[in-house]
């Protein structure tokens, strides 16, 4: 056991063909941790930018990127492959290849989707001048984007992608994920301070105030899931949500008690704030602070910040799915999928987690292109006066539910995750556990609407209602 997790151990043992030495372990760490991150998360985050531009265009009734196809990268590839031929010959071969009907239609589709924008943007960013402003604190300024990216990437180490696909398995992986993502706070502060610009400074200050505040609801929401599952190990939390039978989604945390569902919403909202996404994007509010903490960045360094933001969005999606939506488990027929052979089971599970992450991702984009931005004081008020009390009430509710269950029953073992005791609620208990909080919540909402929900008649007329 090298202490680097199950996947590394197995891979190193396979490499060495017995007890692994340090070389095998290093190679295994590179192959199991670093490579998948680079190969999976980077392209997905980059694709996310294209996706975002397309979605924004759809919401705003534009077309979006629709000209850059894969022709350019392909031509570049041909040039490399046929370096021994003169240029005209290369082009002729390339043209012939492009006119081949299936290739042609693929190129056409890629152009409509703007896929080439990925390469174009990357090359543009590489080619831009790397500016360090005269008044900047050079080292702090240069270091910040790498730290931001590290803070966004590291938590992926503990996210279980499949039954056999966890990079780092520890007993405290939930805590690890929350703690490590705190590096981003330092990075943003460094970027804001090191740039030597007032806009950056204000952006950095806002970012720190916001991130530090929203780490509390996030921590409490994670705490709720931990309390319910009785474990801090993310993989164990996923295993806890396993439910045999056809409707395996009945075992998901979000459907256990309404309090966990509320915590999921809190986690999502606080997660939005953690990634500096709209409506909490006040740290890079373009209409106020030009671009906030990354105003002075250019070229690849700016690109790293952008990548960090999209990676963090992926992270929020992955953690949300893991903690509340059954992780990589399928909503139906999980029992059947987890009994498949690993080579079949792993891709299915990774795809399922991916689908959940993308769903959260799309929701974030939808919100971003719909809602205005909160003001500084409103952001803080939301965190401390709404989210934190909600979390505390929910934690209390979970504790009460656990108490009312009056005991535990043995759960099912799930893959390598041993069986864990779960609250013995029974179907009647579940029903009551849902009915009471939902009724109380609905009553509160109705009362609040009655008291504060009046809309001025002029506004009613504007929105098409009767005045």
């Amino acid at each position, binding site marked *: 056991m090298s202490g680097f997790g199950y996947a590394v151990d197995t891979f190193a043992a396979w490499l060495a063909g017995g007890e692994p030495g340090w070389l095998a372990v290093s190679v295994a760490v590179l192959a199991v941790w670093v490579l998948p991150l680079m190969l999976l998360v980077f392209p997905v985050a980059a694709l996310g930018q294209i996706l975002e531009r397309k979605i924004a265009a759809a919401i705003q009734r534009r077309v979006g990127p629709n000209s850059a196809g894969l022709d350019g990268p392909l031509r570049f590839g041909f040039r490399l492959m046929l370096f021994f031929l003169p240029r005209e010959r290369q082009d002729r071969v390339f043209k012939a290849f492009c006119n081949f009907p299936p290739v042609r239609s693929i190129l056409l589709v890629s152009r409509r989707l703007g896929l080439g924008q990925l390469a174009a943007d990357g090359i543009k960013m590489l080619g831009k001048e790397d500016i360090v402003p005269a008044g900047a604190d050079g080292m702090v300024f240069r270091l910040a984007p790498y730290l931001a990216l590290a803070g966004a990437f590291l938590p992926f180490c503990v996210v279980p992608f499949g039954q056999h696909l966890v990079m780092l398995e520890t007993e405290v992986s939930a805590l690890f994920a929350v703690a490590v993502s705190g590096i981003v706070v330092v990075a943003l502060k460094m970027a804001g301070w090191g740039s030597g610009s007032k806009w950056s400074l204000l952006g950095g200050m*806002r970012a720190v105030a916001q991130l530090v505040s929203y780490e509390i609801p996030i921590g409490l929401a994670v705490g709720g899931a931990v309390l319910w599952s009785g474990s801090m190990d993310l993989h164990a939390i996923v295993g806890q949500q396993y439910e045999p039978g056809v409707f395996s989604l009945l075992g998901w945390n979000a459907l256990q008690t309404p309090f966990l569902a509320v915590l999921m919403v809190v986690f999502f909202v606080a997660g939005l704030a953690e990634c500096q996404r709209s409506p909490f994007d006040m740290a890079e509010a373009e209409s106020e602070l030009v671009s906030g903490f990354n105003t002075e960045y250019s070229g690849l360094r700016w690109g790293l910040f952008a990548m960090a933001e999209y990676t963090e969005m992926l992270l929020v999606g992955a953690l949300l799915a893991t903690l509340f939506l059954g992780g990589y488990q399928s909503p139906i027929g999980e029992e059947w999928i987890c009994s498949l052979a690993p080579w079949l089971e792993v891709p299915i599970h990774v795809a399922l987690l991916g689908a959940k992450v993308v769903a959260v991702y799309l929701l974030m984009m939808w919100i971003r292109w719909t*809602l205005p931005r909160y003001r500084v004081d409103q952001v803080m008020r939301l965190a401390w006066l709404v989210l934190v009390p909600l979390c505390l009430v929910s934690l209390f509710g979970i504790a009460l539910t656990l108490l009312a269950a009056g005991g535990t029953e043995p759960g099912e073992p799930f893959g390598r995750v041993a069986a864990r005791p779960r609250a013995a609620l029974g179907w009647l208990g579940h029903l009551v556990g849902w009915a009471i909080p939902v009724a109380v919540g609905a009553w509160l909402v109705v009362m609040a609407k009655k008291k504060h929900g009046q809309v001025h008649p002029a506004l009613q007329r504007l929105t098409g209602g009767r005045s």
Partner: protein
Amino acid sequence: MTLDASTPNGERMTLNMGPHHPATHGVLRIVVESDGEVVATCTPDHGYLHRSIEKIGECVEWPMFVPYTDRVDYVCAMNANLAYCVAAEKLLQTDPAATFTVPRRAECIRVLVAELNRISSHLVAVGAMAMDVGAYTPFLHGIAQREGVNDIFEKLCGQRLTYNYVTIGGVAFDLYDGAIDDIRRFLDQFEREMVRFNKLVTTNTIFRDRCAGVATVSAKEAVAWGLVGPNLRGSGVDFDVRRDEPYCVYGELGVQVPVGQAFAGRKGQVGDAYDRYVVRLLEIQESIRLCREVLKLLPPSAEKPNDPIGGIQADVGKLLKKPGKGEIHVRTEAPRGEMGYFLVSDGTKSLFRVRCRTGSFTAAGIFHHVMRGIFLADVVAVIGSFDVVVPEIDR
């Protein structure tokens, strides 16, 4: 809401907002002295877009100044044309020798294009305000609707931004064939579109909370600082030049004037940023109604262009060659408030003095007063709520 900017040692940061800042709509420069996030003082600095338009007016002949009025406020060029032409006509008519009247059809067309342009101008205003508050999408939806108006104007006079359409004594062209259908169709779909827009932005809780109670201007203050137009009405002052000093055919249309009434509910006050914003939206609704009304009044086109009913252009050519002496100030209601022209004629072909009074100028004058003690994030929202267009400030 006003906060106190009070750092113990008086440590404040001077922020140079503009002239190149994404939220200042062009080249407005605002020097903000801030105490952290709270604005302590705020000084607008104008003059980056000064083009001596008033001086040009003294050097060119009367009708040659009309294209320059487009550039005074390019977001609502029709209204700017109209303001100058109405003033010039009134000045000509002070001469007892002048006997012309502007044809009724021309007057109706003037009101029609002015109201259409008011719609498109207010669309930019409300869209830009939403963008300043952080919602980018509504701005583009507003611009998409503005395109509808621009298309109609392009067919009408060949231009999409600076129209040079209203002339002294009438309008340059008659309505094209099918213009009335185009306008009716646009109004119908636009009315539906505005309902969607309002559901998206206006009643949005975040948007309302952002604007409610911000930069409140009381009715007394608004009058004292010389605010005009929607900014004045947003403060609850019931005044509209179209209704109270009617020109063209506005007198027959019965213009309804919306005023601010603390639309934001318990968090809002009369005269806050949200009221100014909602007043603009209500004016859009009113403009839609006025367009439909004036289409009913529109007399059919006559053969002779100077026909007093169905014509489009009165005979003023001779008068303009040798106008009488005199001076006059005439105000009209442009989207950004009263646009008044003060013209002095010394009996020569070109005016002796042209002075233009615009709504954005007075709105920019109150900035330093209302922006004390608000959050930095609200500075842009306040600029948006007053709807300043920089060329109108500097001219």
